[in-house]
């Protein structure tokens, strides 16, 4: 069932918002003082955050680029946020100008913003839905249309699953998506990891605890388990910069500092 917004309290500009903090890390201005304050505090604790976010964006681009090269031209970007930097459709269309993308987010501001960006593009849809309610998400007409059998789909869960708490059973949610996508479809995953910088995990999670979307970092095992039912594409589950770099030298000295673990899997 669709959650009713009984109050506009959800649109609260005084509470830091993960999508807008992300935008700030990436140098965007789609944010408000509360977002900036929280993001600056996080950077103060962990100066590498903007770099990690850029690395994340770069991975997203490389993954889409890879899948487009594999012939996939339909993408479902769940937790798309405010995708101004290297949005999926821009990357995909480098290979196929007819590529179709459905952006999904549960933040009404992010959704409204995405709609403003792509208002005139018939091949791009923006849907307000919540990953934690997969039946509702999959029942959205735009999503159903995109997932209709026949053509494989690239499903992107980039920097979104760590906003799903254990109590919300993230593995079950991914399983629900896996069961709904056509064979040959791909799962693109990027997830904040406890590895690499365990010293940062605690304080960082505390900053996000103040947002509407608290952060849950997970272990490599837990993250790899999201690919149950998929076949992992080389090089498997690795740190952000390690996944199919543009040039070998793009991998800096300490890839583990970019603590996101990433991977791409194909549904047989």
């Amino acid at each position, binding site marked *: 069932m669709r959650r*009713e917004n009984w109050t506009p309290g*959800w649109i609260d500009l005084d509470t830091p918002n993960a999508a*807008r903090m992300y935008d700030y890390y990436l140098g965007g201005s789609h944010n408000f003082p509360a977002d900036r304050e929280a993001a600056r505090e996080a950077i103060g604790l962990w100066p590498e955050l903007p770099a990690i976010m850029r690395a994340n964006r770069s991975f997203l681009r490389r993954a889409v680029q890879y899948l487009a090269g594999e012939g996939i031209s339909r993408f479902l970007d769940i937790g798309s946020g405010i995708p101004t930097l290297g949005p999926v459709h821009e990357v995909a269309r480098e290979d196929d100008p007819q590529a179709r993308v459905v952006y999904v987010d549960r933040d009404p501001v992010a959704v409204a913003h995405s709609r403003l960006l792509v208002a005139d593009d018939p091949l791009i849809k923006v849907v307000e839905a919540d990953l934690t309610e997969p039946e509702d998400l999959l029942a959205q007409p735009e999503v159903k249309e995109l997932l209709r059998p026949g053509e494989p789909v690239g499903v992107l869960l980039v920097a979104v699953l760590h906003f799903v708490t254990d109590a919300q059973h993230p593995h079950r949610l991914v399983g629900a998506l896996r069961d709904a996508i056509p064979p040959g479809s791909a799962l693109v995953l990027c997830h904040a990891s406890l590895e690499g910088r365990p010293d940062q995990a605690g304080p960082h999670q505390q900053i996000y605890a103040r947002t509407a979307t608290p952060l849950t970092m997970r272990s490599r095992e837990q993250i790899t388990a999201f690919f149950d039912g998929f076949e992992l594409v080389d090089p498997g589950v690795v740190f952000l910069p390690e996944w199919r770099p543009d040039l070998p030298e793009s991998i800096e000295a300490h890839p583990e500092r970019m603590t996101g673990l990433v991977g791409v899997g194909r549904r047989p």
Partner: protein
Amino acid sequence: MTAAPDPERGTADGFQDAWSNLLRCQSMSLHPRSLRRITASTTALLQRATQESPFDAAPVEQAAAQLVNAHFTDLRLLAGAVDLLQAQALPDRRSTAMAGAFAVGWAAALRDRTLREQDSIRIAVDAARLEAEEALRASETRFRALFETAAIGIGIGDIDGRILAANRSLLEMFGARLEDLQDRKVDDLVHPEDTPDVWTAYDELVHGKRESFQCDKPYYRGDGEVVWTHLTVSLIRHEDGSPRYQVAMMEDITDRYRLQDRLRHQATHDPLTGLPNRAAFFERLEQLFDTAGPTTRFGLCYIDLDGFKVVNDSLGHDTGDQLLIKVAGRITTALAPTGHLVARLGGDEFVVLLEDTRDETEAVEVAQTVLAALDEPVHIGGHKLAVGASIGVLERRVASTTPDAAVRAADLTLYRAKEAGRGRWTLFNAQRNARMVSRYSMSVRMPKALDRGEFFLEYQPLCALADGSLAAVEALVRWRHPLLGVLGPDEFVATAEDTGLILPLGRWVLEQACARAAEWPRRFGTTAPQLNVNITAHQARSRGLVADVARILHGTGLDPRRLQLEITESAALRPQDESLEVLNALVDLGVSLSVDDFGTGWSNLTYLRDLPVSALKLSGSFIGELDGDEQPGDADNAGWAIVGGVVALSHSLGLTLTAEGVETAAAAERLRQLGCDWGQGWHFGRPMAPEAIEQLAGHFPKSP
């Protein structure tokens, strides 16, 4: 001015490499093809700026703007670009000019971009808000329609109990306007019939300790009437979980409740007196037992009116009912200050339940109060009726008994009060109670059975063996027991004898039988049968018996010579007993006596000579064993010989002998031959209704 040939062509190539390298490092999110495009485009613009003369800042600014718009917004890009541009070996400080132009273009584009992004995010916020508000408005509209048109009453209040909103159904239910309700608080809507749980649950709800509760609750309407509701109250919390609103939904169940109420009242109240009935009393008593602590005490006063039946019989049931109403009123008025439960158990029985007593005196005081309240005669329709009551008083620890046992014990105690002479209270005595309990099932009902007319008489013929004519009839008492069916005297007379009830019962039998038999001489002349009535040992020792018999003979007009009292051997053959005096006095009244069931006990025959008896009745068990005349065996012969002996004995003492248990014509004939006078048994007729025996008497011709 002609552009000088570039002296360091290699340097220009070096710049282009450094430039594309700078862009690549800052463009991880850009598709390589996009990167190539923007690199080519900006390189061309910068190239133009290096060559054009005079220097034009526009292409440099344009290149900077292109980069900003392609997300090259990192300040490190600006620093890197300025460094590269400045390091160009160009004439006329053109390198510096380009670096400056780039910084200007970049800053201006970034400022534009920032403002654009701020605008776009604000527009997005507005759009999202608008949508949310629209959704809210739509859902609010739906909710309002639901709220307003719902058939159930809905009210919303804050946590302090202030009523904020109420729908039409609720206002109609309460017969109030919203303004009336808004002045009030939920706490004001107390009704005396609220169960305490309601307000406990309410308190828990507003303090966030429970999410909802349901109950049936009455409210006062605006017009003072009561509306009964089935109420559901739910808590609505703030996002932080703290209680925010309460929502009450109520269904008007007044009609259903009134019906239930009426049915319940009917089920729990005596329609005549309006007092709680037996069921209600037991319900309360069981409740008391369920909730009592180990030291809790309670009391019962079991009240039975004295002589109520007389009123009922002589003045009619209407008067009896009036009397019960007045008595109920007197008892409740007298006990009202105590608050004890007064219930009517049925008939003329009432009970008072005392809860949480200290000791016996409290219960005794209640009994005394009740007796005092009934002291004054009751006026009904010109009659002044003196009503007394007997009361069994019991006061005990709840833990020491059970509801049923307690009521039984109080009833038995009452019975002792009756026995001790009515108009008094008797206190429960554990030992006596134990003795009486074993006889309870009979004895406890018997006094009421007499009042309720559960006893009745049948008559069995005694016929002259010589001609078969009806010589006498024996009156036999029967008890139509409400649970056990019709009981014969052998089933209950012993109990009556033990409990003393035999005295009133015997009196009643005599009254009934004598009244009936008094009519017979007029109807049947000299063939009218003699009346035989049994007297028990207890009766025979009772000094009141002689007076009773005299009074009854006088009252009914029965000729004493027509009455024969049958006494058992055990009663008759104890001359040293005071019964001999009684027996003599009876004979003096003109009544004859017979020894009943002769031959069953050990009889010292010599006393027969001294007793004032005129007849013997040979036990039926004696005759029943003997066959008729055909081929008599040895044992039979001996039996008949004994009968013959008894016949001789009787006749020698001048006594009429009746053989009981005569079941066959042969036995009757044999007895006749032996000289026995009368016979009784199924051969002559079973015990029968008075009308039947009178019909039998009518068959014999009237003597002239």
